[in-house]
């Protein structure tokens, strides 16, 4: 297919662009296969707006006489308005945008066409390999092994080719356990707590069904993570009744009789479709320009978004507490083990592991606990909050995770190496990107699409020193301790950086950030100068003696 076929009017002049908090600008609109480009010709202030078609969530068109107006709502929640003279041009452009922003073939997406303009210093596709992770683990314990049982993605299609499992469980047993777990997602190591040797595992629900099926290998596998005489906790992200109902469909939960050493805790986290509704409601509230305070608060409350944030943080704190305070190992799962499970395991690591609060460590966490762990990004992020079409698999599961990280960040502003912009950048790229990192639903699909060969990794770009400097938190001071966030409603706030990003004047907040950076930078410069002078003086003084 040629993109040109979809572009009937590639260019329109005298188009006026409207954005909140910016004066309207007149300029030229161009459509290419992957971008909508608007450029103003004003000499004093030449401005260009490049918008990926894949970032467009929905468009609306209106006509007043022959002046057409297109309202573009983006997946990053921005809304822009274009006034296009000429009814035909406007219709053509609208239909082109519509077609180009809803291409169904992955291989037509921009990452397959994008050629980087920067030199690749480090290939992001091989920056975070599980083998490296395992090497680190081996230096502190020898109770675990790398298994290649899923080499061909035959045991579990949504798992990566290699996984970390207890040493005493062989591949044969893993195959049997896979048959006992939803989607073949047998329990694997998610996190090893060096401080006390406790671990966090994740899986999907056990397929006990109504007649209470059991699987000796499964029991052996998860018991292998327990120290003798100690108990562990299974954190089930469904309420008990949902877990019970799941048995009718062949699913289920670990029953006490067969797992006597495990205590089960049900900690409910909403399923993905509910989250999507909540997301849509919240964004609607945030775009309501009404001056009415009651209306705003009631819409905010009705969206339930902050409730989900609180539930999720609470579950993650619980998992972290079991490991760090109770000194117990933990197994986390919901139904499929690809959404709420990953939210809990990754957030618990933010709380427990200082490494995950560094830029590289956080990237590794996203790769390990989201990409390799088979969170279906392509399905979940196909549409954002403005989608008109009936939702199928869309859900802001990853966004909720990022927001929870932000909430913790807000409470511990000096303990993270990255800043808020880093989290927002990940949100944007999960929904629309020139990089291949978030394409596909699991490693299996990514391998089939040959993404590492055909597309650029987001990490190749982010980890360049020029880019990194934008994402560094000037206040960062390594904090080697467990950080316990407060989950009280008074402690949680709306993430303005994402939800009010386009609806608030950002100037003052940016200036504040700049000022923070300057204060720290100036201090460091002075420190360096003083140290240099001291050395120089010391040298001169010794010379003299």
């Amino acid at each position: 297919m040629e993109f040109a076929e979809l572009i009937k009017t590639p260019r329109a002049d005298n188009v006026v662009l409207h954005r909140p908090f910016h004066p309207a600008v007149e300029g030229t609109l161009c459509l290419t296969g992957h971008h909508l480009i608007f450029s103003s010709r004003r000499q004093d202030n030449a401005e260009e707006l490049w918008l990926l078609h894949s970032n467009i969530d929905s468009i609306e068109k209106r006509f007043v006489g022959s002046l057409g107006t297109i309202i573009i709502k983006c997946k990053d929640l921005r809304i822009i308005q274009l006034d296009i003279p000429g009814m035909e041009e406007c219709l053509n452009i609208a239909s082109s945008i519509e077609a180009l922003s809803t291409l169904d073939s992955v291989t037509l997406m921009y990452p397959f066409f994008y050629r980087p303009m920067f030199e690749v210093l480090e290939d992001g596709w091989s920056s975070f390999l599980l083998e490296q992770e395992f090497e680190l683990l081996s230096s502190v314990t020898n109770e675990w092994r790398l298994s290649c049982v899923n080499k061909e993605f035959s045991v579990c299609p949504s798992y990566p080719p290699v996984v970390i499992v207890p040493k005493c469980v062989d591949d044969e047993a893993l195959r049997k356990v896979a048959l006992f777990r939803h989607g073949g997602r047998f329990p694997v190591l998610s996190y090893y707590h060096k401080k006390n040797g406790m671990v966090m595992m994740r899986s999907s629900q056990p397929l006990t069904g109504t007649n209470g099926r059991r699987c000796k290998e499964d029991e052996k596998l998860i018991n292998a993570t327990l120290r003798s005489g100690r108990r562990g906790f299974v954190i089930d992200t469904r309420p008990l009744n949902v877990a019970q109902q799941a048995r009718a469909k062949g699913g289920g939960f670990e029953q006490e009789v067969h797992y006597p050493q495990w205590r089960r805790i049900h900690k409910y986290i909403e399923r993905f479709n509910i989250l999507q509704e909540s997301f849509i409601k919240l964004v609607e509230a945030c775009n309501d320009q009404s001056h009415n305070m009651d209306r705003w608060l009631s819409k905010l409350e009705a969206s339930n978004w902050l409730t989900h944030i609180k539930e999720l943080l609470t579950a993650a704190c619980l998992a972290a507490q079991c490991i760090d305070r109770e000194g117990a190992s933990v197994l986390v799962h919901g139904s499929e083990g690809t959404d709420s499970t990953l939210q809990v395991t990754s957030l618990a690591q933010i709380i427990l592991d200082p490494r995950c609060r560094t830029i590289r460590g956080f990237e590794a966490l996203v790769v390990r606990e989201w990409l390799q762990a088979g969170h279906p990004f392509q399905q979940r992020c196909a549409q954002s909050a403005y989608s008109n079409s009936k939702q199928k698999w869309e859900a802001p599961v990853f966004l909720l995770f990022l927001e929870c990280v932000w909430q913790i960040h807000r409470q511990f502003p000096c303990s993270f190496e990255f800043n808020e912009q880093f989290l927002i950048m990940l949100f944007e790229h999960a929904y629309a990107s020139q990089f291949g990192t978030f394409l596909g639903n699991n490693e299996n699909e990514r391998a089939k699409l040959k993404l590492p060969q055909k597309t650029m990794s987001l990490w190749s770009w982010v980890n360049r020193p020029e880019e990194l400097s934008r994402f560094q938190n000037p206040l960062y001071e390594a904090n080697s301790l467990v950080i316990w966030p407060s989950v009280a409603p008074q402690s949680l706030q709306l993430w303005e950086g994402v939800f009010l990003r386009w609806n608030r004047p950002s100037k003052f907040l940016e200036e504040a950030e700049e000022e923070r950076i300057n204060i720290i930078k100036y201090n460091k410069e002075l420190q360096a100068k003083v140290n240099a002078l001291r050395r120089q003086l010391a040298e001169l003084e010794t010379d003299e003696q």
Partner: protein
Amino acid sequence: VENVKLLDRLSSRRAVVGTLYLTATHVIFVENGAETRKETWVLHSQISSIEKQATTATGCPLLIRCKNFQVIQLVIPQERDCHDVYISLIRLARPVKYEELYCFSFNPKLDKEEREQGWKLVDLNEEYNRMGVPNNYWQISDVNRDYGVCDSYPTEVYVPKSATAHIIVGSSKFRSRRRFPALSYYCKGNNASICRSSQPLSGFSARCLEDEQMLQAIRKANPGSDFIYVVDTRPKLNAMANRAAGKGYENEDNYSNIKFQFIGIENIHVMRNSLQKMLEVCELKSPSMSDFLWGLENSGWLKHIKAIMDAGIFIAKAVAEEGVSVLVHCSDGWDRTAQVCSVASLLLDPYYRTVKGFMVLIEKDWVSFGHKFNHRYGNLDGDPKEISPVIDQFIECIWQLMEQFPCAFEFNERFLIHIQHHIYSCQFGNFLCNSQKERRELKIKERTYSLWAHLWKNRADYLNPLYRSDHSQTQGTLHPQIAPCNFLYKFWSGMYNRFEKGLHPRQSVTDYLMAVKEETQQLEEELEVLQERLANLQKSQSGDNKVKSKQQDRSKQTGLYTSNNSLANTPQEYSNDLKSFPSRSPSQGDEEDSALILTQDNLKSSDPDLSANSDPESGVEDLSCRSPSGGGCLPSEDSGKDSDEAVFLAG
């Protein structure tokens, strides 16, 4: 009373046993803990209510709610003791004479001269001169010399030059409580002004020529504009109801060239109930997000804050953008009018966003114009229906603005919280009584100390590290957004859950940056010394031991500074040690601070001696209390654990 239990609201497991003392001025609770002996001091004047609850097996619970939003739950073993404490506190918390208040016994060990200097720190004459009056249009009037015209006004008021004494007196007779229109803020740039008054006694049809002339005079004082706005800050319905009582609002037909405008800010009773409802939400034990948001909405608190802010924005816009003068009133012109005039002034004039300017602003719009501090904040036992969080709302408006304009204010959140605290504490004389007249009669300036001097002395603790006087945000008028989705009004947990440290961010960016800035300053000084030293050395090639030793001092301090940051985190490690217990209210140091029920870190940093750190020892002290998570981390870890303990139980 011994063996009293102090309960922690967030966790029933975290109760401490200690001894309760009642003194003439304070309630003091001393923990029994062997090492720490943590002390909790509460001023009687801070107590807003005491509730004796049903006796349980463990003893008799007593709930003390404070005006600074601290809630203390005690369990006293003997019913009889509890009753005695209850009766005593009820009496002590409700003094009937001004002389019983703490400020008359409080002695910060300053001599007479220092006290007088303190009272001179904020000088309203100087302030009006700064604004640019008197000038061709405005003059000081002495009609109220002996409070003869209006006993709740100051003796010196600014009025339009064309307003004769006859007009003023005539107008005052047509205004509630004789509070005639007077100048609140004058905008040098365009001659527009903000004036304030009470409602006119217009009833259904009454007119007053002098009052009409007075408004005319205000308009004429701004030659650039052919009308003035008259802003009635009440809801229209309330204003109309007032007409039946012979009061009301200006009829546009009777006054030439006015534009009349209602801005619906509710009255003190609505505000009192609203705060009550919001505090109930704050006190909920582990509320869900919906409980909390619903409760917050239902309380209407943020709606009221927004209404005040919107009024301020309207006036600031009229003055700055349209160049039109505004006359503001409500009913008596001492509550909503004070709120709105001061918010508008602060939006208009960067000076009021500085430490000194903010003191001046409160002195001008609140203290001098007869805001009834005694009645509103219940300093003396009085009518509970007079109590209302009027100035609290103003202070919150400023906090909301600080959140939107992080670089625009010279002061930080702590400054606002401490001012709020002292409005209720009665430790300083500034906010005593209901008017200037009463304060003069009581000889406040001779018998008590000024809060402003105290805050000014410790101003280093109240600075916003992001403020720069040359910053674009600092200049000119602030233009806040109006819609809630553009201007996010937030619940101010730093104020209303002030003593629940566990709910606050565990690391303070402000404190961290302040520590960095302080270090930067030291580095600058050292750099200068080193450069000078180097120049000398290069010139003479000879050494000097003095600098060398200074250099060593310095390196010690730097080292300690960095290690301190990690030290600050240690309490986050799990520990049953009592030391890391959440301090509902930490021990009090010296006399001077004894009334300040603040957290340890705040307390330390308000210690005046901390800025001097010539020897490495004090440098350590200093930095440890200012490092990013300083003392604030102590309680936080535990509360953090608390929250997941709750989680755990829920699971």
